[in-house]
């Protein structure tokens, strides 16, 4: 009897194990498939959210500073083009993903790999929505979590804030003359750091359905006045105003005093005393331009360079003197709308002074940049 009863017990155990096995198989393999829409492990769902959140600085870094992920020599940039060209630019993004398959994200001691779509789609917002009006759409993937996510990348990394201060406009004949002063208290103004490039103009024109291309996308685009206005407006901006440009270039005497009664106008962005600059020294016929001179102000005799940052002023805006003839909108003196200081003028030219402007040719095409105000 004892033996029978123990056999029965063993049979019960086998049956129990069989039921648990079948139930386990059902729960492990079949049930989750029936509930794919909602059944995700809590750890995994939170992990995906966390990994996406943590991936943002990494994606930002690839977008804003691609050369920190790939050697710039792999991006087919000529030597006279600065790596700033690749920043928040689809070309920089593509260069990274052409050369590396994925980037690593370390989270909670585990390593995850992020891949991204090489191609970015240029988009313009046509309906009410986020603050940005134009930018790019792409996709990233967190490989280990099998999570793909669409992303929007903004192209504003080359705009800099103009601090709220009192600024001077243009030139004065007498140093004791305060000239025209103005201030931007209460305004959040952002100025383009570089000229609008041919790449941006091609992208704009192609978006509008006009077939356009360029072999030198880093070169400053030269557009007519109405085209400049249309381009800036397309991006939710306006053509840079002359007094804003002066503000970006004339280094304040006292950074701490924001609204002084008197504002001194320096002649150059990098040296208050004009007589101590190479522009003044070049009046000596024996003076020879050196590379440093040309990096500060590209004047006649310098070789061309693009997207270099050596000439940036106190505010971070480049190309204050020399480089291209640049057209502004000048509501104070409508005729003085052109920065004549450029690579077409000898270093000794009188045009190489901040605030000094000439008149643009009607229907002429010039380099330009935009500004935007954020409320």
């Amino acid at each position, binding site marked *: 009897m004892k033996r029978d009863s123990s056999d029965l017990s063993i049979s019960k155990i086998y049956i129990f194990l069989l039921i648990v096995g079948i139930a386990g198989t059902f729960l492990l393999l079949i049930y989750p498939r029936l509930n794919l829409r*909602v059944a995700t492990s809590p750890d995994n769902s939170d992990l995906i959210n966390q990994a996406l959140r943590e991936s943002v600085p990494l994606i930002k870094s690839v977008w804003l500073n691609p050369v920190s992920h790939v050697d710039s020599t792999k991006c087919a940039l000529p030597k006279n083009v600065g790596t700033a060209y690749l920043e928040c630019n689809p070309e920089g993004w593509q260069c990274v993903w052409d050369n590396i398959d994925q980037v690593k994200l370390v989270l909670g001691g585990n390593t995850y790999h992020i891949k991204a779509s090489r191609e970015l789609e240029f988009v313009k*917002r046509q309906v009410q*929505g*986020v603050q*940005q009006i134009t930018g790019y759409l792409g996709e990233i993937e967190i490989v280990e979590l099998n999570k793909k996510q*669409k992303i929007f990348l903004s192209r504003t990394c080359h705009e800099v804030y103009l601090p709220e201060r009192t600024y001077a406009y243009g030139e004065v004949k007498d140093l004791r003359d305060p000239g025209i002063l103005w201030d931007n208290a209460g305004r959040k103004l952002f100025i383009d750091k570089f000229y609008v490039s041919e790449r941006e103009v091609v992208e704009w024109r192609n978006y509008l359905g006009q077939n356009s291309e360029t072999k030198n996308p880093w070169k400053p685009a030269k557009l007519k006045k109405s085209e400049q*206005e249309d381009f800036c407006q397309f991006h939710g901006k306006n053509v840079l105003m002359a007094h804003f440009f002066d503000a970006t270039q004339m280094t304040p005497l006292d950074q701490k005093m924001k609204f002084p009664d008197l504002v001194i106008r320096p002649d150059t962005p990098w040296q208050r005393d004009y007589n101590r600059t190479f522009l003044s020294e070049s009046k000596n016929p024996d003076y020879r331009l050196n590379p440093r001179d040309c990096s500060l102000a590209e004047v006649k005799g310098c070789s061309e360079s693009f997207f270099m940052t050596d000439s940036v002023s106190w505010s971070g805006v480049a190309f204050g003197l020399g480089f291209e003839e640049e057209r502004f909108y000048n509501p104070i003196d409508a005729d003085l709308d052109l920065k004549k200081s450029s690579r077409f003028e000898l270093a000794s030219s009188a045009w190489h002074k901040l605030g000094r402007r000439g008149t643009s040719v009607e229907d002429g095409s010039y380099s330009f940049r935009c500004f935007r105000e954020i409320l």
Partner: protein
Amino acid sequence: MIHLMLFLFALTSFALPDALISRYELIETHEFYQDNELIQRPLDAWQAIAAFSTVNTDLSLSKVCLKYYLKSQTEGTFRVEKKSMTENCSGAGEIISEIKNLRGLQFQRTPHFKITFTYQNFSTSEWNISLRKKNDLRLLETPDRHLDETVLFVSSGSENTGLLKDGTQCLKVLDDCTVEGTSVCHQCENGFLEAPNGCLVSSQYCLKGSCGKKGGPACRRGVKFLRKRVLDCRTDASFAFCEAGSTPVCQGQEVWCH
């Protein structure tokens, strides 16, 4: 047995929906509940816990409402609904996620928005929803950093709210410099211009073109450089200017060019 319970618990928990991964801003939260307070009333009614805006692929925004329904003090249903930005959370919307038979629900607003779900077996899970942080502006700051919009997650969807036409006032500032509401100027079809009124922030209008042109608002020269406590257009409009050929004219306190 514990493993089996954990597994069953896993089957009843939910992933954060894409619409909340692509959240943009926290629009509203329930004003009554304190952070991490267990929601126990009212019974038999839906209540909105919070609402977020979420970014669609066309860069439009939709509203995502997080709602909770208490059948009894120990049984509730949590729902995520997607709606257009103009709709109120109280009405029914497109259900994108639902968790039934919850024992409890709590939420906290800071440092990020967190919802804690308690299930009938007393196990818990969380949704952590981080928020954009607008940064203060300093020298060399960029708009993307200021707005925290360099990288945005987007989810499928679209909203067809047209952009604002030229002439629409997108920010109203009263003569006493009181700002009414918030700016919607980034929704203008052709950009916007301010009509200087001597205040730090002036009224803004959806308008194409540049300031200082005939028929449009004047350009602002500033509000500090004149060293006056009050700037009144009718006594001295020199805080604004127009292009040569047009004259500054006061319209109320605003300066326009005629």
